[in-house]
């Protein structure tokens, strides 16, 4: 019994080797959009999906790209590696030409190998983990957002140079994004030698409150807090710092800089700093994208909307420039032609990071994030 199975196995292995690569459908351009669309992380994935669908609808109404209609295939990965590989193989077997995603860095890492082998380019709106581009493991990976190390450096420089902080508490949400950012901030502060990291600690997302850790920040006499994580935890922290009558500056990453934070933190948001992609709200493309979204959904777009929108734009542009969806041509197009997108005028460098996307520091003033020059 077992022998024959092994024999068959070998046969199968051989068969698999000579099987042809996935075929392409010619009449439409299929773009997979992978990210968390259900579950508790859905708020980070759905705006990108909505952005991609909006762009596709507009492009299709205008006749499509190269005369072909654009089809968006949303695929849920719940930010879990095992579901992400399912989603990735599903997209591959449905013959997508390009993928927008994934949203979480972890899910992205799990999925990239599959795209790499299928020679599919993936453009993530939000996976900021540096090794994704810097390790060289994922040559088919691009992102319309800058990596965490840029941000960590900016945040720590801002805290030490502009705010003059000497004792800095760094908190994070233990997630790959938040922890990554916090790690870089710590590294740069320690390297800079201008300030001391007096507290470096993770908080548990979903914990009932953070008052104990806030008290700890007070005890360490920190004069600034740098937080790595997303806006729900950030607003919880800020609001509890206010409740405990603490008035030290709070600096968050781009996961904080968004309307979600302003809405949830309300009055407590006032004065909070956040690093984030440079202010592009004066860009016509960005303004139009937002206006379109608001007229369609009746609310402000969510996190990573701009980046998702931009990812869709660079992809469609590259397809147009390359005259098709052939891998090498697309790669060349992505790396060589500047595109006007919702996050500014960008093209990609050799590693896949976007050039032209940079970070600035923002501060909440009168209920709005204002870029500090």
């Amino acid at each position, binding site marked *: 019994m077992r022998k024959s199975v092994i024999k068959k196995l070998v046969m*199968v292995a051989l068969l*698999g080797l000579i099987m042809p690569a996935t075929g392409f459908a010619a009449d439409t351009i299929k773009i997979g959009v992978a990210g968390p669309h259900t579950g508790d992380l859905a708020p980070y994935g759905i705006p990108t999906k909505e952005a991609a669908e909006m762009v596709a609808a507009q492009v299709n109404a205008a006749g499509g790209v190269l005369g072909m209609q654009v089809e968006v295939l949303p695929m849920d990965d719940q930010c*879990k590696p095992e579901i992400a590989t*399912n989603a990735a193989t599903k997209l591959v077997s449905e013959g997508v030409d390009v993928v927008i995603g994934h949203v979480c860095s*972890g899910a992205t890492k799990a999925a990239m190998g*599959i795209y790499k082998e299928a020679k599919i380019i993936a453009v993530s709106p939000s996976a900021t983990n540096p090794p994704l581009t810097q390790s060289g493991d994922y040559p088919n990976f691009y992102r319309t957002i800058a990596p965490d190390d840029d941000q960590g450096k900016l945040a720590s420089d801002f805290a030490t140079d502009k705010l003059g902080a000497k004792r800095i508490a760094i908190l994070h949400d*233990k997630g790959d994004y938040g*922890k990554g950012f916090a790690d870089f901030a710590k590294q740069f502060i320690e390297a800079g030698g201008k300030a001391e990291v007096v507290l470096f600690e993770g908080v548990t997302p979903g914990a009932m409150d953070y008052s104990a850790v806030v008290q700890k920040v007070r005890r360490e006499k920190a004069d600034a807090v740098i937080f790595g994580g997303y806006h729900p935890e950030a607003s919880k922290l800020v609001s509890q710092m206010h409740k405990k009558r603490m008035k030290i500056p709070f600096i968050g990453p781009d996961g904080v800089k968004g309307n979600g934070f302003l809405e949830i933190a309300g009055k407590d948001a006032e004065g909070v700093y956040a690093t984030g992609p440079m202010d592009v709200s004066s860009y016509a493309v960005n303004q139009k994208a937002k206006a379109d979204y608001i007229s369609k959904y009746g609310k402000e777009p969510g996190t990573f909307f701009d980046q998702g929108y931009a990812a869709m734009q660079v992809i469609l542009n590259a397809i147009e420039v390359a005259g098709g969806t052939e891998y090498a041509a697309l790669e060349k197009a992505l790396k060589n032609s500047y595109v006007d997108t919702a996050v500014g005028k960008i093209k990609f460098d050799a590693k896949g990071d976007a050039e032209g996307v940079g970070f600035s520091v923002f501060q909440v003033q009168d209920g709005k994030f204002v870029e500090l020059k």
Partner: protein
Amino acid sequence: MVDNIKRSLLVSIWFVFLTFPLMVVKVNTLKNIVEWRWINMLWVAIGAFVLSIVWRWAMERRQLKNKKAEQGEEESVLPGFGQRLLEDPKIFKPVLIALALVTLVFPLVVDIYQTNIMVLALIFVVLGLGLNVTVGLAGLLDLGYVAFFAVGAYTYGVLNSFFGFGFWISLPLGGLMGALFGIVLGFPILRLRGDYLAIVTLGFGSIAKIVIENWEEVFNGAKGIANIPRPGFFGAEMSIHTATTYTYYLMILMVLFAIFITNRLKDSRIGRAWMALREDEIACVAMGVDMARTKLGAYAFGAFWAGLAGVIFASRNTYINPNSFTFMESALVLSIVVMGGMGSIIGVIVAALVLILMPEYLRAFAEYRMLMFGAVMVLMMIFRPEGLIANVRRKYAGRKVVTEDANARG
């Protein structure tokens, strides 16, 4: 009939009331307007009305069935397809052969996606079979089973990234590590019973995740461990497609192996001790069964399979992070065991395939999938508590449980 409609109308009104604030009202704090979604109210009203009628009809049927079962008429009325399938060799053999054939050619006729999710489903089959030992046979409710799964996955991940261990060395090590942790975690909770056990194991599950998350030096924390190699085949270079197909056959072998072992064990000395433990712990100890060893054995054995499955899981994803090891996964595996029919091997397999594959094929309903998943769990318990495919021995065991319960209350 009129009465039925009247009552359904009342139910419908009740649900309209119940869902009103959440379904109809939506406050937009940004624009300071209230969105009244009256149409939802209509849907709720209609839905609740129809469901109420169906519900009552199903309840009546259930009662009728129970009554018949009580009177011992079950056999004559409904031997059950599952039952026949297991007992009648005329049906059993061809079905088995057909099944074997489908299993063998499956990855050759479908695309990589299907194979890939089937591998995941098979991993959960093994997990289900493992937990089936702990919960189904020995009756030890474990809500933190995923911890052992994580132990397996991280054994491979860590050994590979630090020492370059390959899949084939890590596989048994992962299983052993799982079993080891099963024993270690089993010790403090030997004395606990029932629901206490549930909450403590749930705690262990969470602790495992937190430790992985925070112990960066070893587990790489939330960043996870990337570039884990897929299973090798004498050093042959394989494309993902081939590797997936290969993993698929590997999983089939493993499932067969798990079935073989658990089946043998079920009829062994220790297997009977487990079942005795499940039925009545005190009597069991009085009969001279070493409770500590038996319980630890059940834990270790269940955890062993979780460890093995974890190694394959890591190699399939090539990347692991703590997100894959949450309470949801524990609940999922437990649902597989319970829905499959406690103690029933075929039931567990079917349930694992249904529960893992259903969400994949219902991607169209992605948004509603978890909602339906929850509803199915409730409905299954109410209308088909014996699981999808009842254990062959279950007829006897089931009654035993009922009367015992009656005694305990009465």
